[in-house]
Every structure is written in C-alpha cells, then in structure tokens.
C-alpha cells in the first residue's frame, strides 16, 4: 500500500482500494482509474499495439488513445480506457499492449433496452447543453438530456470558472437536478449517444452499474441501450483537444493541456511536478495557470505564435512563467517517461533542453461533430478554429456551443456557449411546435480575456519522422503518412486505410484532424479542401452484450412447439430446428444411436405402421369467390378443376420459373381451399399471396388466413395404417374405393372431430389426421395408445421421401431449379394461358441441355454415405484447379428399404447420365457413384394403396 504522492494537498475523501498490474493502490471516491493511477505516480499505463512503446494517460475522457486497460475483477472486460473507468473498491485491472482478452466465463449481468420518444434530445450536459435543455424543458417540452459522465457540467468540470459567483460544477449540478425534477424531463447520466441515424433515430448506451463493481445489484441491468426517436436533436457535444506531431510525442508524461487541467481541478491530482507547455492557441494558458496554482512548476510555455493573447501573457509574467513565442517543442526525451523537453525557435535555431516530467500539448480544439456527421450533416472548415464544424443537414438537428465552433478562435468562451445553447434550445422546441417565451435567465459568467488568433500547426518539421506520432493507438507516425502520400495516395480516406490512422477503437478522436493536417502538409494543399474521413457509428465502443440485451439464450428467438411437444420430450426425442419450430428428429430407444433409430423407424413405416407429428406444415385458408382463379395463377398446375373433397399436389414458382414452394391443396368448398406449405416457407407463402392479391390482382375477391397453429396434424403411415385408422375412426369407410388416394373426409378420430386426408409423403399407404390443435395431444396419445404405432421423426421422413425422389424445397432446390429440373414436367400445365413462371419456361436458359437435373446416386460401395454438399466430377483423378464440377449432392441417407446408402443430387444434364459413373471428391478420396433415376423405391407406385 502506498500513499498518493501526486494527490493535491489537503484533499480528503473516501478511500477506494484497487489493484493495477499486480500492485495495490489507493484512490479516492470520484476518481477514474486514470486519475487514481496519476495520483499514485503511475506514468506508463499500457504499451502500444505495434511498437510496444510505453504509453501513459494522455487525455481525461473518451478520446483517450493510450491508457487501455483490461478489467480482471469483478468481471473481465477488455479494452477499456482508464480515463472512463470509474474507480470502485476491489477493482483489479491490467494495462494492455493495445489488445485485450475476452472474458473466459459467462457474463452474469443482465442488459436491457428501452425505447423513448421526446420533443428535444440534448446530447451533452455541458454549459451549452444544460442551457438548451433548460429553455426547452421550462417551456414544457418533453426533453431528454444525455451525458456520458457521472456528473453534469461537461467542460465546467475541468476549469475553475464560476457561474453566478459559485463554481460552475455546482451550478451544473443544481440546474440539472432542477430539470430532472420536471415531469417531462429525463436526465440520463453515464449515457453515451453512440449513433445518430435517419429521422433522428438516436441510440445511446447507459452504464447503470459498471461503476459499482461487486456492489452492483444483480437485478439491475448493467447497461441499457436507449433507442430514442427525437423530434429535434441539439448536439452540445463540446470539443476534443488535439496534439501536435513532434519527436517522442507519445512518451508517458506528454499530455493534452486541457486534460492536465481537468486532473488538477476536478480530480485534485497533479499529473507531474515540473511542466513545459507547448501550445498553438490561448487555451493552454488557462491550463498552465491552473496547474501553477495547484503547485506544478511551469518551466516554460513554448507558443508557436508570435503574438499570444496579451492578458494571458501578462498573467504569466505576474507569476514569473517564461513565455517563449515563436517556439516549438522539437522533442520529448526520457527513458520510458518524460525527463526533459527540447525546445527551440520554429524553423531553425538553437534548441535547448528543459528538465521536466510533464509536457502539456495543445494543438487546438476540434468540435465533436461525429454525431452531426453520422446524421448526414456536411462539415465545413473553419479557418479560425483550424477544424471542421457542422454545415448543412436535412435532419432536424443542430449543434450548439463549442460543438458548433462558437467563439471561432478555438478557445471556448463560457458565456457564448451558454447563450448559444439557450438559443438552440429555443429554436428546437419552437420547431417541435411549442410556443417558447423569451427571457430564460442564464447564469452570469466571468469576464474572459479576448482570445488571440490560433496558429494551426500540425507537425514540427524534422529530419526523421519516426517518432512523430499522429495516431497513438494505431502507432501511426508522420513517417507512415509520408509513405502513404509518397505511394501516390492523395485522399485522406485512402491514407486512413493505408496507414490505419483513425481506425482504432478511439476512432481517431485526437488523431483524425491531425492526420488530415499532416497529409495536407505533405501534399502542399489546404486542409479545407482535403476534408476529413467519414464519421461512423458507434461514437465509442459498445459491448456486444449491451446490443444483445435480453435477446440471448432462450430469449434469443421465439421457440414454436406443437401441441404434442411434451409427449415427444417425455419419449426422449431429439429435436431438430425447422425455422423457429422444434420438430422431433428421431426417437432413440435405449442403446440406439441415430443410425439404428432411423433405420428402425423407416422399417416400421415401410413394413408396419408409424406416425409423425406433421403439425408444423404451413396451412393457409384461401377463401372467396375467386379463390380457384387465384390458385390457378399461383400454382403451375390446374387447381380450379379440383373437386370438392379432393386434394392435389402443387408447385409454386417465381416469375423467373424457379421453384418457390410446394405442398397440397385441399378443396373444402367451391370457394374455399386449404393450402399447405413447407414448414419453413409458411410465412413467405402467405406474404407471396398477399403481395399478388394487393399489388397485381386487387380485383380478385380472395382472403388468405394463416391457420398453421389452429391445426394439429398426425401423419399415419405404413401398410397397417388403414387398420389402425379403422379402429380409431369406426364411422369412417376406410376402404380404398370409398376413401381413395388424394381425397379427404371429415369424421371423428378417437372421438375428436377430425379431417382425414389421404396424402402420402413416403409412398406408403398413409393418412394425415388433422384436428383442432387443442386436441392434438389427445389425438397423438390415442394413436400411440395401443403401442403398435412407431413414432418417427423428421430424419425418417427425409429418408422415406428421398427414397421416393420427393424433393424438399430449400434442400434439393436453391432458387435456381425449375419443376422440369426436378423431373416434374407433368406438374407444369400446358392448358393454362398463364401462371406465375410460365413465360420463363420458354426462355433459352430454362431449356439448356446442361441444366442441373435431380437424379439419384448410388455409391459403388453400398456402405459409403456421401456428405451432403459434396461435388461431382467426371474423372477418376482430379485435374489441376479450377476443377469443373457437374453438380452436388443435396440429400444423402442410409436406406433400410434399399439395404444401402443413396443420395439425391443436382447434376448437369443428369437425366442423360443415368447409368454413368461419376466421382465425388470426399477429403482425399474420389468416391465412385452411379447415376440413377431420382425415384429409387417403388417407382411404379404400388404401395400407396396398401
């Protein structure tokens, strides 16, 4: 345990204990990890990603490029900035070499999301933001004020400025508390607005319990995503200070001047003992004087300008601080941290070395225009600022305060920011439709010295630019940028990609404009015409956990189960996902593996009697006087000729002629059909029907309703299915003549009102028994009661249908397959004048002889199971790549009925290849296979009538 040698004298507070890089330290409540480390004299916090150079705290907020840490305890989290980690008891962290480690355990925290609407969203609770929110809120507007820090005040937190004669920080706290008490105002602290999208859709992330460490209540969301739709947005996002490229500008001890000021004033920490200040504008003088007042010796101020602000120069003279005008820092020197600073006249001249452990840099301030740019706003270069400021935008958003570049000299003036914010708040609320009275009282700010113009200096010229860093986090130097421009790159976007400058997780907050400046310098052009790279969301890194919110684990996606689900579970079924549905895959008996179970289930269906839960098939009621006309247009075959009481199989295609879905159509009445779809396409088919009815054929009097979940369906399959059905439905004439194939009957099955359809997806005698899904389980239990019916799952269903050559849309087809390719020429009507897809069958492409046809494959070794997706080639040895492929395996199974393996495949000109030997490259082997018809079992259809 050590004292806090760099804590300002007389500071008291609650002690917080933490551990960093294996050592125990103490900090104070209210510290960030960065300020606590500085208080303990820890200078090198991390090391750089490419060069491994030691790096210290550079900034005091989310713009920090250097001080990257990994939280180890209480829960591992990588790549946080020490400047934004609030200190808590028990925090254990390590400095990172530019890259973190993912947590090695599941995150126990919960994350959630909230939608919100408001008249005015104000981003940033600094002087301008508070003023804007104050005007809008007091006029009755619904206002959200979001700020990334634990307490409001923004830039006021880092200065000693007063408002109404008291510290600005106190004013901010009181004003925001007063606003938060208004009924229509919501103040979001620790909330970073990370994305600004179309129509003022704004995404923010609130860190609710991160700062509490182990004391965080488990029931409270750790982070919350706010999805805000705002009528107007005011961006009062302030500015980020930038640095200057000079030799060794990455050494620990080099720090942004404004950040040092914040550490001294807000965190009561001295970032060093003896400092040199290097500046291009007046703002660093305020920092130098505050630090001098706090006890830091200011060895010299090197000001690149000939004429600094007179008032500031006078104040320095009063304190005996040497101001060197026309001077630059040529190098920061030291072993692992700054021990001296080399300064000299700009351009040429004798340099001298000044002993110092701190070097404060201000290369000017850049308005934070990220969100404005994300929202589609243009940026324009402001000569006075030497930075880009918000220009035009079509969105209902405006920037206020320093984010808009108020002041124009790069020095933020408090009074101007307050007034600008109030005006923006007034405009925003008026634009949102409110009557806003004038006369909002703003607090009185002190007189501020008139700022002298800044001089925009991007780099200090030197012979060797190897340690002139422009992007600290990416280890990009001026030398790297010159390499890019030397290679002929003239766009900052290209230089960014070539050097990676600005692509680190700080997203170039301190380096973006500096990179542009250095490129402009190298090319001898103006920064204004060069522009900046595009700003993209997120403004700061967002954890995946926050984005996932509650949509993880069992809540990731809705799960749909059938009425019989609990029976399947109790029977030990394994399940397969079919879209959101859980379908029984197979029902292994004790000691059975999948292969054994599926062969047994297949045998039961082909030789005895078996049943499957087919409830997940999509079912759509198509009703209306024009229903038959409508289905004639949708299906390739004729549906209007279907008799009431009968069933027809149909295929639906897209206008390009490719198969989209298949299923059966049941005619219930002249004006009523029940259409079944594949399980996965149920919603798509309903959408398809609606699209055509609404957009092309609004004259057709047809209504379509999904009834998938209203019906439970049991497929009863096998030579003995008729006998089982006869026993369950004594009122039903089950004979082949009275109840022929492809007809349906309404009856009672096991005492339940049922519709029984003679449909077969296996080639066997089979029935599909449909009942209200309320009675689905009762029906299933009745079917299973005698113990003679074998339950089977989707794997067996697949094997049975594949043996018969029935394709599965989406498995044996992929959107490039016509019904003719599938060997179903017979289902494409020649009689109908038109149907969706018909014209495409006259296209040259759909009659090409080398189209892929659905065929069967028999591996020459009947024990070899081909992997689905395996390609097929003509030759027994592979030629040099690219290897011409004839097609690929779409389905592959072991067949009990065939006593061997088999496969279905799409093969170029496949029907002409029946009998040919092809080869499937599998791993290092070429597996020989014989092409056959796709119908491998009972090709004459002898089994369907039992």
């Amino acid at each position, binding site marked *: 345990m050590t004292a806090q040698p760099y804590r300002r004298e007389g500071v008291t507070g609650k002690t917080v204990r933490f551990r960093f890089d294996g050592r125990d330290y103490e900090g104070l409540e209210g510290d960030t990890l960065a300020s606590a480390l500085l208080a303990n004299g820890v200078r090198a916090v991390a090391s750089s990603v490419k060069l491994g150079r030691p790096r210290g705290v550079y900034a005091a907020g989310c713009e920090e490029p250097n001080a990257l840490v990994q939280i180890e305890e209480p829960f591992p989290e990588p790549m946080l900035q020490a400047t934004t980690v609030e200190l808590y008891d028990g925090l254990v962290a390590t400095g990172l070499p530019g890259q973190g480690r993912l947590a090695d355990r599941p995150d126990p925290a919960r994350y959630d999301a909230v939608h919100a609407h408001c008249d005015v969203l104000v981003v940033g609770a600094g002087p301008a933001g508070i003023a804007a929110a104050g005007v809008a809120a007091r006029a009755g507007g619904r206002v959200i004020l979001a700020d990334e820090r634990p307490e409001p005040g923004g830039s006021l937190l880092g200065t000693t400025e007063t408002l109404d004669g008291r510290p600005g920080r106190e004013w901010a706290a009181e004003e925001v508390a007063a606003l938060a008490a208004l009924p229509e105002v919501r103040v979001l602290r620790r909330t970073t607005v990370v994305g600004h999208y*179309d129509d003022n859709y704004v995404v923010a992330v609130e860190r609710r319990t991160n700062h509490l460490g182990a004391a965080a209540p488990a029931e409270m969301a750790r982070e919350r995503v706010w999805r805000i739709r705002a009528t107007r947005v005011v961006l009062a996002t302030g500015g980020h200070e930038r640095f200057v490229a000079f030799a060794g500008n990455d050494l620990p001890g080099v720090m942004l001047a404004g950040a040092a000021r914040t550490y001294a004033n807000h965190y009561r920490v001295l970032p060093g003992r003896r400092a040199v200040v290097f500046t291009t504008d007046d703002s660093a003088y305020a920092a130098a004087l505050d630090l001098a007042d706090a006890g830091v010796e200011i060895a010299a101020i090197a000001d690149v300008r000939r004429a600094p602000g007179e008032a500031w120069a006078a104040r320095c003279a009063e304190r005996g601080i040497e101001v060197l005008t026309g001077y630059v820092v040529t190098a920061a020197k030291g072993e692992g941290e700054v021990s001296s600073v080399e300064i000299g006249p700009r351009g040429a001249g004798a340099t001298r070395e000044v002993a110092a452990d701190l070097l404060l840099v201000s290369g000017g301030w850049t308005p934070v225009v990220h969100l404005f740019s994300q929202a589609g706003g243009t940026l324009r270069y402001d000569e006075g600022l030497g930075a880009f400021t918000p220009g035009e935008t079509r969105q209902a958003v405006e920037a206020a305060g320093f984010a808009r570049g108020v002041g124009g000299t790069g020095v933020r003036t408090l009074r101007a920011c307050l007034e600008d914010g109030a005006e923006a708040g007034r405009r925003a609320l008026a634009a949102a439709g409110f009557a806003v009275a004038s006369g909002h009282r703003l607090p009185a700010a002190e007189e501020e010295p008139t700022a002298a113009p800044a001089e925009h200096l991007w780099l200090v010229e030197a012979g060797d630019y190897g340690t002139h860093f422009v992007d600290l986090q990416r280890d990009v130097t001026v030398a790297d940028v010159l390499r890019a421009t030397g290679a002929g790159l003239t766009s900052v976007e290209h230089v960014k990609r070539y050097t990676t400058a600005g692509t680190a997780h700080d997203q170039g907050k301190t380096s973006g404009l500096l990179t542009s400046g250095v490129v402009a310098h190298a090319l001898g052009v103006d920064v204004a015409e060069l522009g900046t790279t595009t700003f993209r969301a997120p403004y700061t890194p967002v954890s995946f956990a926050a984005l996932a919110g509650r949509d993880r684990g069992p809540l990731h996606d809705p799960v749909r189960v059938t009425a019989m689900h609990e029976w399947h579970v109790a029977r030990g079924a394994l399940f397969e996902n079919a879209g959101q549905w859980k379908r029984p895959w197979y029902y292994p008996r004790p000691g059975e593996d999948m292969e054994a179970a599926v062969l047994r289930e297949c045998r039961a269906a082909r030789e005895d009697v078996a049943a499957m839960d087919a409830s997940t098939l999509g079912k759509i009621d198509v009703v209306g006087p024009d229903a038959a006309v409508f289905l004639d247009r949708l299906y390739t075959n004729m549906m209007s000729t279907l008799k009431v009481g009968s069933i027809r199989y149909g295929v639906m295609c897209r206008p390009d002629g490719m198969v989209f879905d298949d299923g059966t159509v049941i005619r219930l009445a002249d004006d009523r059909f029940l259409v079944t779809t594949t399980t996965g396409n149920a919603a798509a088919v309903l*959408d398809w029907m609606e699209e055509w009815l609404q*957009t*092309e054929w609004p004259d057709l009097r047809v209504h379509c309703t999904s009834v998938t979940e209203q019906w439970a369906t049991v497929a009863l399959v096998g030579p003995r299915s008729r006998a089982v059905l006869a026993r369950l439905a004594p009122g039903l004439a089950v004979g082949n003549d009275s109840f022929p194939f492809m007809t349906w009957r309404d009856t009672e099955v096991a005492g339940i009102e049922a519709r029984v359809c003679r449909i077969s997806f296996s080639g066997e005698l089979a029935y599909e028994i449909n009942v209200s899904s309320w009675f689905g389980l009762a029906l299933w239990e009745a079917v299973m009661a005698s113990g003679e019916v074998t339950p089977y799952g989707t794997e067996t269903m697949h094997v049975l249908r594949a043996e018969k050559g029935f394709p599965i849309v989406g498995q044996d087809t992929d959107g490039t397959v016509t019904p003719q390719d599938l060997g179903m020429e017979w289902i494409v009507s020649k009689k109908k004048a038109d149907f969706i897809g018909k*014209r495409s069958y006259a296209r040259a492409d759909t009659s090409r002889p080398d189209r892929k046809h659905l065929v069967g494959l028999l591996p020459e070794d009947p024990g070899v199971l081909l992997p689905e997706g395996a390609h097929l080639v003509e030759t027994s040895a592979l030629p040099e790549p690219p290897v011409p492929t004839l097609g690929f395996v779409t389905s592959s199974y072991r067949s009990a009925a065939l006593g061997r393996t088999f496969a279905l495949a799409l093969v170029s000109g496949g029907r002409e290849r029946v009998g040919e030997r092809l080869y499937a490259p599998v791993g290092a082997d070429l597996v020989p296979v014989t092409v056959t018809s796709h119908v491998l079992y009972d090709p004459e259809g002898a089994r369907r009538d039992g």
Partner: protein
Amino acid sequence: MLLIPCPWCGPRDEAEFHYGGQAHVAYPEDPAALSDEEWARYLFFRDNPKGLFAERWSHTAGCRRWFNAVRDTATNEIHAVYRTGEPRPVIA
C-alpha cells in the same frame, strides 16, 4: 432507422416494414406476347437512381398492406407515400 409514414397506420419504425423494390413494374398483361428480351427486362431489370425513387413497402409487422413511397435514395428522405394503384405523385 427510417420513420416510414404508412398510409394506413401513420409513422412507424422501419423495422416493421419489408422492402419491395421498384414500384410501378406491373406484371405484363400477356407474358406470352413478349419477346425474350422484354420478358427479361420485366424479370431482371430495375432502376437504380441517385435521387427520387418510387418503391414498394409492405407494413408486414403492422397492417400488412402494401403501399408505395417516393424516397430520395441519396438522403433517405421520404417525399410521399401513396396507396397501391394510385399514380406516382409529382414531386417538385
């Protein structure tokens, strides 16, 4: 995320809608009468303008109705929405 003014329901989040591509591409009166090229143009060719574009949307998670919108593809601004079957409004 766009705020799309459904002509039946009012402004709703884009997440409630499905996009339907270019509007006013009618299914040909008599496909059989078209040349292969004319049919291919109907099947495969769509405009891709920078600027105003009449396109179809379906409010799938709402009223489930199709409608048309004129959107500026460069700014995402929706200038007009109108019901299926209505002519494309003239936008100055």
